[in-house]
């Protein structure tokens, strides 16, 4: 009882701080860690600054766990809370000020702050940087898969295929134009131009995937559910083995040497764009048509909804972002093989979507981040990791069959609203 009251108090006071406050707090914590993190770690007999809040140490070296907890408390929890609560009045006023400005302005401010936090935080280690980038790519993949599997309710299994198409198309573009490559010969354009053309490469990757999605979208006019699932599965296998048979892109050995253009700002911008556009879409009436087609196609038809167009848009749109994510992925890991885009990857992506929650932007972000994190945390367990993750997912499915945060609209305006007013409204 007392615990519940305590929890309620914590929750209430946390809710009184607008997101801006938390972000500023996190930024301060990140800076703090950059300044004194190493010294503090030494003092606490830690070998280095814990890369992911010490979570990775949980199974690697459990004895260090208390020390990392202390580290987290001193570097993250206390400073964040102190700053957040300390500036509460200020940030709430800022939020109130921003409420009457265009939404994009407020959103942009928060995004810039978020990027700053990530930028500072990932300074600490290359591992952190890579994990952060891969998580952001996973967010894009999960969200785009959610468009098809959650919002439109088809069980599509072709996402690794779309991703492969994007990865290869983007890689071919950059490799042909900007690098001296084993497969494609000398660069056609000066490398200095490359980073500027990189968005174009990603766009081409996305469009290639979207075109590929037609192969799945067109059969979806006539058949739904299981058969479509198989068609999409077959598509995934076809993409994989088609690439294996195209020698110019390296066949089964894959393609490497992509320039390292998937930098943090690029990935972050791509992810922010992806979330923004997808969220825009699914909140519009055109986007909600996906839900109508999912919940009852006959009714959708009778209510003037062009169901074929809707299905096509969903598949191509989802595939586009998978393609972009594939392009980013290729330029991050800098070596892709067709074998990598297979069942294993599919299982991971499905896990993220269904764990996080169907039909929900926040759910996808939560799913992608938490499954990636759990996967990093459990890495020291070796293959036992693959016993724990499935078990978690099975439990989630049994107790929450549509995932943790399902069927939720993501309304930026409401989230960024000043807290005082929000709290008052709730009372």
């Amino acid at each position, binding site marked *: 009882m007392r615990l519940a009251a305590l929890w309620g108090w914590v929750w209430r006071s946390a809710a009184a701080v607008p997101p801006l406050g938390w972000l500023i707090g996190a930024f301060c914590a990140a800076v703090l860690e950059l300044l004194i993190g190493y010294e503090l770690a030494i003092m606490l007999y830690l070998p280095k600054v814990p890369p992911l809040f010490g979570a990775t140490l949980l199974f690697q070296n459990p004895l260090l766990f208390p020390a990392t907890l202390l580290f987290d408390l001193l570097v993250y929890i206390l400073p964040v809370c102190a700053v957040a609560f300390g500036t509460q009045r200020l940030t709430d006023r800022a939020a109130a000020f921003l409420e009457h400005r265009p939404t994009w302005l407020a959103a942009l401010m928060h995004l810039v702050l978020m990027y700053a936090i990530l930028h500072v935080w990932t300074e600490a280690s290359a591992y952190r940087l890579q994990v952060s980038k891969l998580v952001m790519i996973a967010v894009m993949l999960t969200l785009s898969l959610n468009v098809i599997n959650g919002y439109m309710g088809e069980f599509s299994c072709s996402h690794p295929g779309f991703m492969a198409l994007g990865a290869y198309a983007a890689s071919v573009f950059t490799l042909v134009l900007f690098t001296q490559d084993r497969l494609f010969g000398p660069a056609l354009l000066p490398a200095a131009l490359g980073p500027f053309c990189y968005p174009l490469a990603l766009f081409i990757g996305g469009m290639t995937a979207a075109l590929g999605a037609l192969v799945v979208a067109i059969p979806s006019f006539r058949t739904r559910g299981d058969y479509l699932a198989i068609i999409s599965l077959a598509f995934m296998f076809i993409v994989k083995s088609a690439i294996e048979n195209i020698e110019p892109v390296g066949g089964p050995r894959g393609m490497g040497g992509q320039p390292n253009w998937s930098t943090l700002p690029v990935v972050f911008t791509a992810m922010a764009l992806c979330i923004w556009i997808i969220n825009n879409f699914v909140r519009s009436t055109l986007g909600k048509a996906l839900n109508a087609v999912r919940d009852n196609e006959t009714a959708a038809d009778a209510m003037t909804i062009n169901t074929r167009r809707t299905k096509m848009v969903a598949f191509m749109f989802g595939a586009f972002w998978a393609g972009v994510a594939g392009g980013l992925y290729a330029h991050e890991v800098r070596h892709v093989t067709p074998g990598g885009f297979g069942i294993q990857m599919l299982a991971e992506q499905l896990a993220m979507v269904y764990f996080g929650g*169907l039909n929900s932007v926040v759910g996808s972000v939560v799913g992608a981040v938490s499954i990636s994190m759990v996967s990093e945390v459990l890495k020291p367990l070796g293959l036992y990791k693959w016993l724990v993750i499935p078990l978690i997912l099975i439990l989630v499915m049994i107790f929450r069959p549509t995932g943790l945060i399902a069927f939720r609209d993501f309304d930026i305006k409401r989230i960024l609203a000043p807290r005082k007013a929000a709290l008052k409204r709730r009372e």
Partner: protein
Amino acid sequence: MSLEFLLQNVINALQWGSFYALIALGYSMVYSILMLFNFTHGDIFMTGTYIGLGVATGLLALSGAMGIVLPGWLLLAMTIVIAMFLTSFVGVAVERVGYRPLRDAPRASAAITGLMIGIMLEYGNLAILGTQRLLFPPIIETVTYNIFGVFVTNKKIVIVAVALSLMLALHLFIQKTRWGMAMRAMSFDFQVVPLMGVSINLIAPMTFAIGSALAAAGGILYALAYPVLDPFMGILLGWKSFVAAILGGRGSILGAALAGFLLGFIEVFVPIVFPSTFRDLIAYSIILLILTFRPYGFFGQAHSTQLRL
């Protein structure tokens, strides 16, 4: 292309078709009863093979200890029967843990649990048996017959014969027994089945059990031909058989068997004409085309294709 060469490959195709068909039957049966795909089935096939390995090794050791030399065919028969029996419990357990709690949930969720249990079986196997690949004991010795220039091993004959007779047995079971009758009824309209005094919780596990037993038999036959076992062997064969089950028309036993053999033929004959790396590409393209133009497979019915969500 000579006639001998052709016949040679027909036999190979029949052998591969047998594996696919035996596994596809399990998918198809579960589908017809519960309207959901048992995505664990490929890994049940793998588990069945390993159980077969255990049984065969045990039997060999036992007969060795008792100083009896059992003939190869008897050993094989005993291995298959015992392994089928044991593996059926794996199927029942999977139904109980993974599918029954989710019977009213969205079907996609059940698919996810199925996939996850499959992963757990794979890595559970790795955790228990380690990463080195195990070899299935040579229960029967390979004898090669030359029939008019066509070389046939006794193993291939055994594989095809056992597969065909198991399919025949399944057919008889489904057509002639009251259990089979209940299964057919349930595939037609599972909601009314309880009104006949038949419990769904009886028929569903039984279906899983039979499917798993057939997968185990398929696994042992597979190990007979390709004795190097691998915890991930279920993925490749499982997914392909799954596709065959769909191709046959979901829930159609005959369709699943035929599509399994068709897949075997495609896979054996494509490399004759094209480079062998095109095998998967062409096999899956054919499947995609068939499903695009015949969305319900060979024998499938067009009812209720909506995903519940």
